[in-house]
């Protein structure tokens, strides 16, 4: 016999379907009582030997529970005092529906034979099945079913006694009417004979039927409301940036406001994700808060419970309300445009079921809820997930799994992650693109020779870093008369091979730059060009674009000309080799001569440039030596610099400048130039302050003064001090960018760092697309190539510049991320003492720079939010004092370096102070540690772990 159950349910598309389920009703379901003779025997843990001793009843009895008892009093049920409990299937289903964790806990009890629980399938039993009445609420129907089952048991087994426990007074009253002995849980438990441990665990909560999914977020306004709001000025439009440290805080940059507008809390952020364009409502000034400096992490939980978020919101409120200096604050009322992309990350461990939480590598992105049936496998992988939607009743955005990248920690996986996270196009070149390449073998035809100036007789050579295969520049220098030298810079003629508008050109324009990772290079153009046809290799005939100056011996340019040429490089050298040739006085051949001349000229040019106010900046650049077989980092070292480095640099700068002048002259509207804006003086604050504390006055009013003050900031006892100043100065700078000359005023063309009025990129067309455009412009000027419409379109060039700037920035970040990852890999499991310098002094920490590895790490003096009882912070002087040890900015220190891998997505270095020695804080150096100490050290990582969590 069967009946059907119909209900309406929404499907994925959003339509409502009528579902019909067949429901079978049987007469062979056993009651589970051992005493029963009419039912056939089944496995049942119910036992007549177990006694429930309640003072209210002088007889032993079975207990039947209502749903609310299980939901609220699970702690009591888990105590092994109550036994012989019959769980009705109706109740079990309801528990499962309301709370999965409770259901799991209940099932653990049911599975335990010593607890004597039995599940009775009342809803399929012929005697206890009830049809739902018209207009009957589910709750009432379930209650009715439960009571019907109780009555059935009482009639079915007259020898046994049954007690029905419920905290729902209405249900209890009805049960009593139907002659079912019924009690509230608290009445029952307090009268239990051995109740001591149970009464404490009673939940006193009054039972209310909970609403279905509650909304976690306020509604968004509709598009029309947003647009009218913005038009009328009630709402502001801006780009949302999430805080990396605090998941309940973000900032919206609005054009009309100087400060970023703070948004805080669930309601304030209202489902905005980093990068979204949002509409914002500004609060009244009384309600403004100041940005918090606390760190709040989202400890994602599997269900949609937001209690922990609420408590964190309150913490945040306390933190931000009490201080002065409130900033404009508002709340997000709607999303104008989503900027969702695909995110790399890992799954959060410890969650069962098909719904998993995904933790993006980017801390400013919230966790994402994904549905997957392969969680076990994915937990070991780095994966890509994309966001689909963020409904208001969900604590997390909903997304779906896109693909797995590979095992967590693998170098190839991590490279992939770095490339994806930085939006670097890194797929193989398509067939279409490869079809644009010249056919091999490639030969120079007579036609080519007639169109180009033949410079194959010149002694041209190239100087590059070791292992460089994409050689895009070569030089020569020869005396033409006693007063004059001819200096030529020859750049690979990439634009000869990459014709405008071809798939190859489009691909290169989209890639914009070659990306260098530690053990991998993502080419902008296919390898045939980058490492062969365009690469100015030694002894091979190659096409070049030459920039040839006539100079006097004081490096004054008398004359400059540009033309396409054919060259044959005599030798491809490394910086070191070139340096050796210059220094080796016995070498007198023409290459050595020209190198010496070039070097001499370069020195003069550099001198002149610096005198003009060009900045010498520093950032610790490191090189990672890789094991060629295992691809594991062997050593991390700071790049060595030779005189030849700066020699090449000078001529490249000069070539770029000369080309920039030329193309601007002919194409005042659409020349692709590079500018470096003057940083706002506010940016220099940290530098000026740091200088003042050490008794130097750093002048930042002009580049020239800055360069001069940096040169003067020298202390004899600390040779690294000057470099530190330069590192700080580098951080004050803005990014240099490409632009189309028509898009800016002439005075804005200025390149601040180089202190030249005009600059462009001409010298590396193999790895930069901007150079290709410049080549094309220059080729038009010297009549060796034709223009095409896009080249002369100011708008198109500006759009192109935007892409180039974006890709360059990303390529730079990707390179740094790759170095950081490999440095981490190198330090894994190592413990090392290193010399470092204090870069900044903070309230509870020191920022330490370790020049040997180019690392900048934080040495915590106290836990976050606390002040150290060892160190005394002096805000005025920017010092930390402990006893007679005073730490200033730029002081040398020795620190112990270890890698903390607790968070596999965000490994970081942990520092401990070795020198200067501070009692109760610093650790002895490794050299002094004997075996005893090592033993004592072993539990240390634990301590660190604990410490880290607090931060």
């Amino acid at each position, binding site marked *: 016999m069967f009946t059907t159950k119909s209900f309406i349910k929404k499907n994925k598309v959003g339509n409502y379907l009528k579902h019909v389920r067949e429901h079978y009703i049987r007469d062979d379901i056993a009651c589970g009582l051992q005493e029963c003779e009419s039912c056939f025997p089944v496995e049942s843990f119910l036992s007549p030997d177990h006694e429930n001793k309640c003072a209210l009843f002088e007889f032993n009895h079975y207990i039947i529970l209502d749903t609310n008892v299980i939901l609220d009093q699970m702690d009591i049920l888990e105590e092994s005092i109550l036994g012989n409990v019959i769980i009705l299937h109706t109740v079990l289903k309801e528990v499962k529906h309301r709370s999965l964790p409770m259901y799991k806990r209940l099932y653990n009890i049911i599975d335990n034979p010593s607890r004597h629980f039995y599940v009775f399938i009342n809803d399929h039993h012929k005697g206890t099945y009830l049809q739902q009445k018209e207009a009957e609420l589910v709750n009432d129907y379930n209650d009715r079913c439960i009571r019907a089952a109780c009555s059935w048991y009482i009639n079915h087994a007259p020898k046994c006694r049954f007690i029905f426990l419920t905290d729902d007074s209405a249900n209890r009253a009805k049960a009593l009417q139907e002659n079912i002995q019924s009690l509230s849980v608290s009445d029952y438990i307090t009268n239990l004979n051995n109740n001591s441990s149970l009464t404490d665990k009673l939940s006193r909560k009054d039972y209310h039927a909970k609403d279905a999914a509650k909304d976690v977020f306020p509604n968004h306004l509709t598009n029309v409301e947003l647009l009218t709001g913005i038009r009328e000025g009630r709402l502001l439009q801006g780009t949302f940036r999430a805080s990396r440290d605090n998941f309940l805080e973000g900032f919206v940059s609005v054009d009309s406001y100087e400060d970023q507008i703070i948004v805080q809390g669930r309601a304030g952020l209202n489902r905005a994700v980093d990068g979204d364009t949002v509409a914002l409502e500004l609060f009244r000034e009384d309600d403004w808060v100041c940005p918090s400096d606390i760190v709040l992490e989202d400890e994602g939980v599997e269900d949609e419970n937001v209690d922990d978020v609420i408590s964190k919101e309150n913490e945040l409120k306390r933190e931000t309300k009490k201080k002065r200096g409130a900033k404009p604050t508002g709340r997000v009322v*709607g999303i104008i445009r989503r900027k969702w992309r695909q995110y790399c990350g890992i799954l959060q461990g410890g969650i069962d079921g098909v719904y998993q939480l995904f933790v993006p590598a980017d801390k400013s992105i919230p966790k994402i809820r994904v549905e997957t049936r392969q969680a076990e496998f994915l937990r070991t992988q780095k994966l890509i997930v994309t966001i689909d939607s963020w409904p208001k009743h969900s604590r997390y955005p909903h997304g779906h799994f896109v693909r797995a990248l590979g095992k967590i920690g693998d170098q190839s996986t991590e490279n992939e992650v770095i490339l994806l996270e930085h939006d670097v196009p890194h797929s193989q070149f398509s067939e279409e693109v490869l079809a644009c390449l010249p056919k091999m073998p490639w030969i120079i035809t007579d036609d080519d020779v007639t169109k180009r100036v033949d410079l194959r007789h010149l002694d041209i050579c190239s100087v590059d870093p070791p292992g460089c295969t994409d050689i895009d520049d070569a030089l020569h220098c020869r005396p033409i008369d006693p007063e004059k030298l001819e200096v030529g810079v020859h750049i690979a003629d990439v634009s000869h091979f990459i014709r405008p508008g071809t798939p190859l050109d489009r691909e290169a324009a989209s890639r914009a730059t070659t990306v260098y990772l530690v053990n991998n290079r993502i080419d902008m153009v296919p390898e045939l060009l980058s490492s062969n046809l365009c690469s100015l290799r030694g002894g091979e005939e190659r096409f070049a674009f030459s920039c040839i100056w006539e100079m006097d011996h004081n490096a004054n340019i008398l004359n400059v000309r540009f033309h396409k040429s054919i060259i044959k490089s005599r030798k491809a050298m490394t910086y070191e080799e070139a340096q050796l040739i210059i220094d080796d006085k016995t070498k007198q051949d023409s290459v050595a001569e020209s190198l010496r001349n070039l070097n001499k000229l370069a020195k003069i040019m550099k001198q002149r440039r610096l005198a003009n106010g060009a900045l010498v900046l520093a950032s610790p650049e490191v090189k990672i030596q890789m094991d060629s077989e295992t691809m594991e980092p062997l050593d991390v070292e700071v790049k060595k610099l030779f005189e030849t480095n700066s020699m090449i640099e000078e001529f490249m700068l000069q070539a770029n400048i000369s080309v920039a002048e030329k193309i601007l002259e002919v194409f005042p509207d659409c020349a692709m130039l590079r500018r470096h804006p003057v940083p706002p003086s506010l940016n220099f604050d940290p530098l000026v302050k740091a200088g003042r504390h050490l008794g130097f006055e750093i002048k930042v009013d002009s580049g020239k003064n800055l360069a001069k003050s940096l040169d003067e900031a020298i202390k004899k006892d600390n040779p690294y001090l000057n470099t530190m100043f330069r590192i700080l100065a580098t951080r004050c700078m803005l990014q240099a960018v490409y632009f189309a000359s028509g898009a800016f005023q002439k005075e804005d063309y200025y390149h601040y760092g180089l202190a030249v009025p005009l600059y462009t990129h001409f010298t590396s067309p193999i790895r930069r697309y901007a150079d290709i455009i410049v080549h094309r412009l220059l080729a038009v000027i010297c009549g060796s190539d034709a223009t095409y419409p896009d080249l002369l379109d100011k708008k198109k060039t500006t759009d192109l510049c935007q892409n180039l700037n974006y890709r360059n920035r990303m390529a730079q970040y990707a390179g740094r991320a790759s170095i950081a990852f490999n440095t981490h890999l190198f330090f894994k499991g190592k413990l090392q003492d290193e010399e470092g310098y204090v870069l900044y002094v903070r309230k509870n920490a020191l920022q330490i720079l370790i020049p040997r590895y180019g690392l900048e790490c934080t040495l915590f003096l106290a836990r976050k939010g606390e002040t150290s009882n060892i160190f005394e912070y002096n805000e005025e002087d920017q010092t930390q004092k402990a006893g007679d040890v005073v730490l200033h900015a730029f002081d040398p220190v020795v620190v112990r370096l270890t890698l903390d891998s607790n968070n596999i997505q965000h490994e970081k270095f942990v520092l401990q102070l070795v020198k200067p020695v501070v009692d109760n804080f610093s650790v002895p150096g490794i050299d002094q540690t004997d075996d005893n100490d090592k033993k004592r050290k072993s539990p240390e990582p634990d301590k660190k772990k604990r410490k880290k969590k607090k931060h």
Partner: protein
Amino acid sequence: MALCEAEKTFVLHGVEENFRIDGREREDYRPMELETNIVSHAFGSARLRLANTDVLVAVKIEVDVPYPERPREGKLEFFVDCSANATPDFEGRGGEDLAVEISNSLAGAYRSPEVFDLTKLCILKGRKCWKIFVDILLLECGGNLYDAVSIAVKAALWDTRIPLVKSVTVDGNNIDMEVSEELHDCQKLDVTGAPIMVTVCKIGEQCIVDPSAAEELCSVGALVISVSRNKFSTILQTGSGSLHPQTLLECLQTGHKVAQRLHDALIETLVDIKPSENSVGFLR
């Protein structure tokens, strides 16, 4: 079906005598059998058997966006499927023209707001509405399809239950609807105005209703009259013959009268239908 001349004459004479071949008078219908709620997955359904004509109607409901020009109204659509089982003529694409004709005439008959109130189907003005799909399946053709279909459609719509919308919230461009899961929360449609179609068939000099398949072959032309609440909603002429104005008037009067009787009988029957324990019908 093909009739020879003698058979045709026999039918014609019968009609003249007001004693048709199956013994009916001119304004008599053949016996009908009606069942509702027989497709459990549909929101409403009905099956009508009119002698040898068998029609199954199922109603499906979806959420849709109202037409911009009628933002306050829901949508109603008819779709007729001529099963090849109904008659060999329907094999392949044979039934398509007829199917389109029937669905168009139904759409026309239901178009007026007086006939069927579409505003009841609106959920949120201009944004969300219910769209009702009426799927009609011709299982067997025994003549007089229009009448049978219109009655079955009316019965199916009577049986239809529209899910109850508990709340509608606007969240940005998303509209969140909460719909009751319970079937008994559903709302019924008002179908008292739903048109009844009566095919009045001219045979010889006389008009008859509910022509059998044989009678249809003898007719020179027919008028399909749909009547809703005493008013004509559409009138459709089928067949090749032409009608004299006087005949037209007579046909309209006959159709109107018969439609009234049919409507009353149908409503009476529908009210009487009770869910029975021992289900009948062919799908269970």
